[in-house]
């Protein structure tokens, strides 16, 4: 038992050592120079990046959750099969292709990037909302109906709390993909931190590469972590216990 724990710790420590070494190396080689020297440009790009992610993400959340709820109602059950399959298929399409398609139809600019990311974020949230509501125990719903809850009360008091974890997981996935894809938005004139990464690639300039790539990575990891916490906080205690 003890040796097993020890091996796990060693692996963890090794990983963090690699991370620390990487940061030491980049700092020693002055690779964050662009951020320091041109802080205004950095905040501008970061701002663009966040705006793209925020607008497209928010729209996706506002539309896909109600849509997911709608689709799981009795009268729409026939459409559910098609929507789930389309969401599956849509997520198979590579992110670069989605951006390229958006550019093909909407031209160059931030608007095309936001539309592309909105559609791309819609799918995982929609899929998880449907799956979350569907995973609620049939007997629980039956019992709720039996004691006289209205369909709306069942939705608010039972289906949504039980599906909360799954829905937040969907948002989490969508936003992480969104942040990564937003880094490609530069290619279709959408701006964002991708600008520095692609400049770095074109000019073989490591400093620009790192100054673009590291903040994007940290942003993604931070958002991921935030929603991981949210997932734990917003899930009713009874469900957390049931999972154990």
């Amino acid at each position, binding site marked *: 038992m003890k040796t097993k724990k020890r091996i796990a710790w060693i692996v963890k420590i090794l990983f963090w050592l690699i991370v620390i070494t990487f940061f030491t190396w980049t700092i020693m080689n002055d690779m964050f120079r662009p951020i320091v020297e041109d802080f205004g440009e950095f905040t501008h790009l970061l701002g663009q990046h966040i705006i793209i992610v925020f607008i497209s993400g928010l729209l996706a959340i506002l539309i896909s959750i109600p849509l997911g709820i709608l689709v799981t109602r009795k009268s729409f059950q026939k459409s559910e099969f098609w929507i789930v399959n389309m969401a599956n298929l849509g997520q*198979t399409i590579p992110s670069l292709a989605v951006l*390229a398609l958006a550019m093909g139809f909407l031209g160059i600019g931030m608007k095309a990037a936001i539309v592309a990311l909105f559609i791309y974020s819609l799918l995982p949230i929609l899929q998880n909302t449907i799956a979350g509501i569907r995973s609620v125990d049939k007997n629980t719903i039956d019992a709720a109906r039996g004691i006289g809850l209205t369909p709306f009360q069942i939705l608010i008091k039972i289906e949504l709390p039980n599906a909360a974890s799954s829905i937040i997981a969907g948002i989490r996935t969508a936003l992480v993909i969104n942040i990564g894809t937003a880094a*490609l938005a530069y290619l279709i004139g959408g701006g964002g931190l991708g600008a520095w990464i692609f400049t*770095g690639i074109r000019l073989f300039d490591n400093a620009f590469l790192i100054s673009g*790539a590291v903040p*994007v990575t940290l942003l993604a*990891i931070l958002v991921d972590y935030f929603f991981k916490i949210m997932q734990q906080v917003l899930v009713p205690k009874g469900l957390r216990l049931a999972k154990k």
Partner: protein
Amino acid sequence: MEHVQLVGLAIIVSILIGVPLGVYLTTNEYLAESVLQIFSIIMTIPSIALFGVMIPILSTIGQGIGFLPAFIALVLYSQLPIIRNTYTGINEVDPNIRDAAKGLGMTTLQRLIKVEIPNAMPLIMAGVRTATVLNIGVGAIAAYIGAGGLGSLINQGISRSNTTMVLVGAVVVSILAIVVDQLLRYFEKRFTPKGI
């Protein structure tokens, strides 16, 4: 073809690393937790950012752009779905079945090969499929660091403002992803032992 080669090679290597590692992790849950955590952090790194980080590192050995960074990135991204699904698949084999296998006098290796892996097969295959589809997408982006493939069609289309070229590139790479996804779904069903 470059695209298919890159993704194919990366997936084969990923399976060779991920499946044994996933199997090994079932013997040490603490290590499993650490390893899965590490790979889920790696999974969170946006692909273009991962290239961005890897180019400076690999350029110290003169391999900054081209095949190698793309290949390494694809293998890294594939690990989480493959390891996680192998690990979960084997852990979720009915404890009664494992108990019976032990009670009948199977050695650990026999149990693994005859019982545990075949029963975990659907999940392992699903992991491989997820990884492959993901890799086709990341592989498209790899065109920007000079790994070639269908991404270069999109790349050139954008730089020449040739909308048709961009659309053709996007559609072809999407179709590739969808076809491979469906094909692997079919194999998943086909190669799942009939009893399961």
